């Protein structure tokens, strides 16, 4: 062991996310805003206007082939930027790519995974749809609209999917307030709200 033991070895970068980053940076030079290649769930953040181009690229490029939009999640950041920001995270995976050797260190082991992030201002909170890229994104986008209130543009009608149609607001936003009742049934908020 000739290496110094003072500094711990840098954690290994995720190979699939690394390749996805290279693909994105080659095709859309200014598109990538930030990225994190190590850790439990590495991610790449792109500009909102480059999102669709990035998604097409990651789906069709021979190096990535992320053919499945497994999950879309929304995050509300009320204190970020001016007037808050909404973040949408696309968890993409590939059925076509084979897992690489030594790929078992992550929580989601054995499968190639990439998390793609995009951030937009909270008002109006509009993100272009990816429904035509991955058809399965339809319900995920509806859920993200339902709970976090992200407006996906360029898709067919954006309806609620889990909550009733006349539900007030988007409950996973940080500033959402508990209504006193819903159709005569009281809603009891937790203490401190």
């Amino acid at each position, binding site marked *: 062991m000739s290496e110094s033991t003072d500094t711990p070895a840098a954690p290994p970068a995720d190979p699939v996310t690394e390749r996805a980053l290279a693909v994105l940076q080659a095709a859309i030079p200014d598109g990538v805003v930030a990225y994190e290649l190590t850790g439990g769930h590495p991610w790449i953040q792109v500009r909102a206007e480059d999102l669709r181009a990035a998604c097409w690229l990651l789906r069709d490029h021979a190096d990535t082939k992320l053919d499945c939009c497994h999950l879309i999640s929304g995050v509300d950041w009320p204190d970020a930027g001016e007037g808050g920001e909404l973040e949408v995270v696309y968890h993409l995976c590939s059925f076509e790519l084979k897992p690489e050797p030594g790929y078992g260190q992550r929580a989601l082991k054995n499968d190639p995974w990439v998390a793609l992030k995009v951030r937009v201002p909270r008002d109006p909170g509009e993100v272009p749809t990816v429904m035509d890229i991955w058809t399965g994104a339809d319900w995920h986008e509806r859920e993200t609209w339902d709970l976090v209130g992200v407006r996906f543009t360029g898709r067919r009608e954006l309806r609620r999917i889990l*909550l*009733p149609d006349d539900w007030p607001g988007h*409950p996973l936003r940080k500033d959402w307030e508990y209504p006193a009742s819903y*159709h005569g*049934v*009281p809603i*009891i908020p937790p*203490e401190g709200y």
Partner: protein
Amino acid sequence: MPDDAQPGEVLLDPELQQSVILTKVQWVKDWGRRNALWPMAFGLACCAMEMMATAATKYDLDRFGAGVFRASPRQSDLMIVAGTLSHKMAPRLKRLWEQMPDPKYVIAMGACVIGGGPYSRYGYHVVQGVDLIVPVDVYLPGCPPRPEALIDAIRKLQFRIQERTGESLATIEAKTGRKGAGAARAS
């Protein structure tokens, strides 16, 4: 009639006394009611799995006369509210309950329908107790309760039916004009 009979005395043939039981018609009605409860096949979440297990062969709810799960509320006496009741479901539950013929009974099965259960603090979408929607006869705690517990709840309900001469909570409330604790109406 024999000449030595006293006024007011009930005279029965000794042979008839061997084979006839005298009782009240009401008692017989209650006996029939409590031993032929027809629950509605209505499950909302994981408690419904225990309800199914209770009705299946191992626990065999039919032993207590309550195993005939009906697919229609119009044929049911008993609504076992098994699972998490969301605000979206609440008007539907109320409507199903209203479609059941009187006398009708409700068992609140599991922590969620008793008072919100694990969703009682931050579950904005969960009704904090089914007794806000319909009157409840028996509360059955557990998360989820085991089949033995559901059988116990049904036995308790059967005893209460006999004690109360068949009247459900809804009938009593309608007669007395008093609402049960926290019994608000949905939509």
